């Protein structure tokens, strides 16, 4: 019994070794592939396509990580969503869809949450413009308040200086002002 199993095992191993040798002469099998996480598929030119990457950087992964598809699939190698979404993007690109059409297809399927930044329309405009409007309004108020404050402030100290030095000539006063300016 043991002898039969060993023989079968030997044949299986030999077949596997021959198969592996025919398939690949430089990549040996590692001791325990499970330790290295999920098996990867070889990278293709489409994976590195800047156009595909640019689209994926605008689309959110649906796994809940909050990252875009490109970042998630090249960072979180335990995620099963981002590789599937990547395939979907590549398929749409293969079908001849433009970048905007791919994005629209994702929005149609997953809603606006598929986008990494909300589209600039409707209520979302508030998201983009409220901070700027608030800051500009605050700046306007600040300028107004500063103007009021400066208007209420008494005249500058030149007259005081003049009073303090009745004997000073205009040239001397001017020189003093220049020196004071240097010190400021």
């Amino acid at each position, binding site marked *: 019994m043991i002898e039969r199993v060993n023989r079968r095992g030997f044949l299986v191993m030999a077949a596997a070794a021959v198969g592996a040798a025919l398939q690949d002469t430089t990549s040996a099998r*590692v001791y325990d*592939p499970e330790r290295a996480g999920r098996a990867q598929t070889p990278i293709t030119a489409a994976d590195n396509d800047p156009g595909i990457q640019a689209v994926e950087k605008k689309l959110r992964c649906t796994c809940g990580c909050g990252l875009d598809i490109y970042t998630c699939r090249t*960072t979180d190698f335990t995620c099963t969503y981002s590789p599937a979404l990547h395939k979907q993007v590549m398929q749409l690109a293969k079908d001849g869809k433009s970048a905007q059409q791919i994005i629209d297809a994702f929005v149609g399927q997953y809603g606006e949450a598929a986008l990494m930044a*909300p589209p600039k329309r409707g209520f979302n405009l508030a998201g983009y413009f409220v901070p700027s409007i608030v*800051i500009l309004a605050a700046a306007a108020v600040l300028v107004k308040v500063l103007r009021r404050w400066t208007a209420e402030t008494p005249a500058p100290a030149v007259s005081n200086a003049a009073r303090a030095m009745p004997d000073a000539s205009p040239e001397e006063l001017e020189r003093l002002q220049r020196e004071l300016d240097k010190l400021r």
Partner: protein
Amino acid sequence: MILLGNLALWLAFLIGLWGGITGFVGGAQGRPDLQQSARHASFALFGALLVAVISLELAIFRHDFSLEYVAAYTSRNLPTFYLWSALYAGQKGSLLFWATVLSLFACLAQVMTGRRHRMYLPYVAAVTCLVATFFISVMVFAANPFERLNFVPLDGRGMNPQLQNPGMVFHPPMLYLGYISITIPFAFAIAALLSKKLDAEWLVAVRKWTLVSWLFLSIGLLIGMWWAYVELGWGGYWAWDPVENAALLPWLVMTAFLHSVMIQEKRGMLKKWNLALIIGAWLLSIFGTFITRSGVIASVHSFTQSNVGYFFLAFLVLAAVSSFTLYATRLPLLEAEARLESMVSREASFLFNNLLLIGIAFSVLWGTLFPILSEAIRGTKITVGPPFFNQVNVPLGLSLLALTGIGPLIAWRRASVPNLRRQFAVPATTAVFVVLIFLVAGMRDFGALMALTIGGFVFATVIQEFARGARARHRQYGEPTALAVVQLLARNRRRYGGYIVHVAMAMLFIAFAGMSFKTETEATLKPGESATLRSADGHVYTFTHLGISQYNALNRQVTAALVEVHRDGKAVGRLRTEKRQHVDALGRPTFEPSTEVGIQSGLRVDLYVVLAGLVNGTEQAVFRFTINPLVWWVWFGGFVLVIGGLIVLWPGGGAVAIKGVPAARTQAGYTVKLEPAGR
């Protein structure tokens, strides 16, 4: 130990309540016995919480898996280094850590506050005791770290692999120290409002504590960025994640305070504004805690979703309403002592600096909360990610950087045209040269170009300030230049330390701009095969896969890939990137395999290699290669920022005369309080 820990928590809860009540009543009625009792309660509270912490740490080190917290976050084979950090690895333990550190800060505030500010201490004790009591009540009623399991597992689940990084041992405590210590300036502000002693005294007591918080928060943020870069593997350090944003908000508000406080010191202005900033910074720290712990907004950094969010929301609302109601009743006591003299003055530039800092804080808060708002109003879920935040905040950030350079060039009170011409000549010329050099070099990225130009302007401003100061000392005391610079720093730490922080900010912005020129590629390589990648500065990097090795370490099974790197044909080193399967003491896998990035950091670029995985279980591996420009300068800029902050914070080094406060008691860079011209 578990019983002792539980008892200590309950005791701390009662002491905290006692300290809160006696502090307020004693302060209001002027009863020394109750005031003394409140102060003692601060120390007793720390003692009780320390016992609870020691109990939990002992349970962790003894692998007492009958405790739910110990079983959930540790395992027998977890390295000792990380057993320490298990205290704050989970929600419940971090609440205990928070309350304990707060009570420690409360004790330090009691001990380190000078006699002159003693009248605030009962109220300070009351506020700190009540805030700590809130955190203890969350533990006692909703998230007890001493909760027992119905059974005792053979081994614990272990710590999340991403937390098993030196950065995560230091990042949370630093961030917590920043967050928590804001309570002390807040407590002094509330004490000043309650006691109606709203002169410059409270400001002196508060400024240093705010600086301490700001420094800890800065260090926490920087270490967090470093951890995200080396551990998360996405090749960046800031992703505008809600939890990152929540930590940035109080930092921005405190930075605004640290600038506007100078106007109050010198001119007796902006009292209302400064108090509002301190209260706002503290409320934002509680808001950040709410965001992190409630799960209300999805984030990779959040703790597991739990019901403690409701506690924090209720506390946040209650604290905001009561603080601002008290603040509103004291507004008549907070009138300015002087008026602004000119729109072109240091004071006005500080006000615009405050406007931008608070504007950035508002836009970050708005972007963080906008998904919730959208869902509530339209019923539509949306994502507000980095593209949104970059679009809104980059122009604001660059404007703020410009003010960092402009502010020091404008005179206090009123700047004249000759003065402005003289001050701006060198920095403006430098900025023009910088922009021309980079335009000629072919740089067309507008954001990066602006960051470099404005950065150059800030550098020139600071160098000019140091040069003029050193020249003045050389003329007056005959000191050599190097000694004069050292003396400038030593004699006027606040001013020149602040300039060093400005330089650090310019470095950081330039380094951030470097990421615009990041290049990356993915490749599948068999051993001996190579991939090439061109960096933004034109060098060609070749990455050669040398092979895969597998071995066992203390609590993990490692798959390591070795990659040799050549730049323009010359060898520059080898990088190692790993997959780690963490296991418990019985050899059972505990988490999904994690990735360790291989990084070679340099002054110009970082080489960043990530092992994505293996193909068909062979040595053929999938890699991501990234070239990140100027990342080293982020860490170095952060280091310079901390050094600048420490110089400002260091005791002594010149004194400022604040109205009603003897100069020797304050540490500041200004020797004269400016009075309005008419006085």
